[in-house]
């Protein structure tokens, strides 16, 4: 990682997305719908406001999203 990327990554982790976001519980509740919308190429972020910001701010929920997206994509192949 280049120095500027490292700087921005640290600032992003420390200061978070800085916009309205879902809680971890709301994220888990909406995760299946958000993943299916994403995999279908639909407007997932417009349909579920606050999800993208939460995934940007919460590393654990972001990993859960990536896993479910990849599993659903693999199943659809």
């Amino acid at each position: 990682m280049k120095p500027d990327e490292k700087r921005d990554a640290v600032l992003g982790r420390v200061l978070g997305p800085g916009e309205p976001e879902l809680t971890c519980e709301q994220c888990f509740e909406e995760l299946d719908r958000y993943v299916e919308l994403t995999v279908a190429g639909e407007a997932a972020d417009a349909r579920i406001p606050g999800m993208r910001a939460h995934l940007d701010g919460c590393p654990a929920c972001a990993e859960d999203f990536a896993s479910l997206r990849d599993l659903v994509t693999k199943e659809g192949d």
Partner: protein
Amino acid sequence: MATALMTAPTEISWVDRLRAEGAEGRAAVAELHALLLKAARFEVGRRAAELSHLRGGDQEDLAQQAADDALMAILRKLDEFRGESRFTTWAYKFALLEAAVKVRKRAWQGREIPLEDEAWSALADAGAPAGRGAEDAELFAALREEIERLGERQREVLVAVALNGVPIDVLADRLGSTRGALYKNLHDARRNLRVALAARGLRVGTGG
């Protein structure tokens, strides 16, 4: 894909079959467990690097435990399935969560949570790229001061999760808390830092 987002008959039948008495219910539970085990193995497999110290059999045990726990959670929460996704997608998220949490905890088993001093060096390191000059130095110095002014729980969570890379589930386990509660602490800490930096007239954006 829109059809997948509607409540298809097969999605309803999953719930009905799982609630059925006798052989039909047992068969549906066994079928669901097999799907959950597949999802749990998928998650354990993609996290194999975190578990390199474990034998293959231990990894399989972990996947089995995750599938068992996910099955129990799903059977408790069947009423919450709203049919807004396929039933299998809804069910998979429980297995993936259980597996991910178990892997993170196993990977951190016996490891100490890093000290604050390690976070300060990470912060100083990130704040010293060439060519950014005094403005960045001021921003990162102020950031450290404001982190030190946070309340104890907010500072503890922010330093561990955001600077020292401790998984939030691991920290929650050590502190006897939950991911959701600690994320609230993290969220509040971030908001307080943004407000404090803005009050100092410091630009907090990233990039350029």
